[in-house]
């Protein structure tokens, strides 16, 4: 068994209508707030000017916001920061919209602006543009949060990097009805070890 000494440098959760960074609340909204309105509130609170945000679907917006907040804690991302994401519903928000567009009885027509978001890895493309990450991306689809897979895979990815290990990883389940996101940056400094046990605890603690 090899010893990995990678560290969680910062993390962000989006649960229901609450966004927390390193455990501290960044934004809370009434649970009845529609997803789009909630994400727009978060964008405003970031106080940045990035018009592309408004074109994104809910999955991309949520990942964009979490990625922005983590960078404020852990520092600017290195260009080689690997992206390792997973969720259950893939790009369901846009999939459902595109399916509705093409099967509706009156004037069925596909929209390129919707179709482009019918891939989950588009979110990784969006944050790669924003943070200039020329790195490897992988999007896994699991039926549940699975640190038992993600942690060993992230360790292998970090071992494969030549130096300055850096990865942004996590669970990004975002649909109209459910927000369950835990994103974290892994590097070589920080007080918490990147381990299955810690990431289970983090996911469950933040759920309370």
């Amino acid at each position: 068994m090899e010893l990995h000494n990678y560290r969680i440098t910062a993390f962000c959760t989006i649960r229901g209508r609450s966004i927390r960074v390193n455990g501290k609340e960044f934004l809370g909204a009434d649970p009845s707030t529609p997803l789009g309105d909630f994400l727009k509130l978060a964008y405003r609170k970031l106080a940045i000017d990035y018009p592309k945000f408004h074109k994104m679907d809910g999955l991309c917006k949520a990942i964009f916001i979490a990625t922005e907040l983590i960078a404020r804690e852990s520092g600017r991302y290195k260009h080689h920061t690997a992206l390792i994401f997973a969720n259950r519903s893939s790009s369901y928000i846009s999939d459902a919209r595109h399916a509705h567009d093409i099967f509706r009885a009156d004037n069925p027509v596909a929209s390129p602006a919707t179709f482009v978001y019918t891939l989950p890895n588009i979110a990784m493309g969006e944050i790669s543009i924003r943070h200039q990450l020329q790195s490897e991306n992988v999007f896994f689809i699991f039926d549940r949060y699975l640190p038992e897979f993600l942690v060993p895979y992230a360790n292998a990815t970090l071992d494969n990097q030549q130096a300055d290990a850096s990865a942004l990883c996590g669970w990004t389940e975002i649909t109209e009805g459910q927000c369950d996101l835990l994103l974290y940056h892994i590097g070589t400094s920080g007080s918490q070890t990147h381990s299955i046990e810690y990431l289970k605890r983090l996911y469950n603690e933040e759920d309370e």
Partner: protein
Amino acid sequence: MKHDVYIIGDEAISPLGIGSELNFQRLRNNDRAIVPIMDTHLCDHTIYAARIDEGYWSHLINDAPHYTRLERLFILALQRLINRHDIPVDGETLVILSTTKGNVSLLGDPRAAFPEQRARIPAMAAAIGRYFGFENQPIPISNACISGSLAISVARRLLRYGGKYKRAVVVGGDELSKFIVSGFDAFQALADGPCRPFDRDRKGLNLGEAVAGVYLSTVPVAGAVKISGVGSSNDANHISGPSRTGEGLYLSIREAMDEAGDVALDFISAHGTATVYNDEMEAIAFQRCGLSAVPAHSLKGYFGHTLGASGLLETVMAIHSLKNSELVPSAGFAHQGTSQPVNIITQPTQRPLNAFLKTASGFGGCNIATIFQNV
């Protein structure tokens, strides 16, 4: 400790037939799967696409009615790989599935024979896992058009650095659906005839469907092919268009070549979708890597763009090129049509082959390059 990882088995199911040897033989015969299709369940006008015939294969698996069409294709490919190589379904076998859209054809379609829940990729993976009784639940990857090549890389990394897995089966598949056809059509990405990768007169892509897979091991056997280098980089430039400078693909190829060391590449199996921008981007990336003179093909002119299967299908065919010492021509090519020249293969050529480069690029700005060589 790092282990070398080898491909020791492969499988392909396409409109050209069942089995990788048969598919390769069909390429040698210059058989092409792309035909005009007028089917209002896919599109309200004729499209050129490659579709797997119904019926001639469903009886080959048990309980076929319990599985969607795409699941049945995955099961058939896996069954053939497992039977041929006696692959254990125990905890040491990693199973990775690559797909861009899985059972998405069920979504929103009033004709669908399965509940919409089955359109979720984990439901498909669970159904396939149950069929074989894999101890490890199959791991799906959905990463646009690089999914197939990426799945090989992910499996390799887990075998290379991990202690848990001794072997991996990696299978990718996608099928034609109104969902996918309407989207590419809305993008005006579909050619109005057979596609022409890298040609001057290319006008877009043809969609296709296939399921293809490889069997990976850390133990080489006779005829094994080593995965000797992988690189993957995002363009960080645009979500739906390739980089004008080929930056992400250039970085990917460089990374793969650095890892592979001093390997002379005998040919390139390009992504070559036959869209104006993709092929131009690839030509620039190859030129920047000093690979303009290396013989290259795209197999999209035979199979169409098979999305999540493409990286796997085209890798499997390239492995058969190595085994048969034969370069396969790039169907649909007649005239140089990129700002940087690419040495497109136009005639079947017998010569000793040792190593090849496979590239893929996709929406979201993702790129991957993998180098394979004889052991």
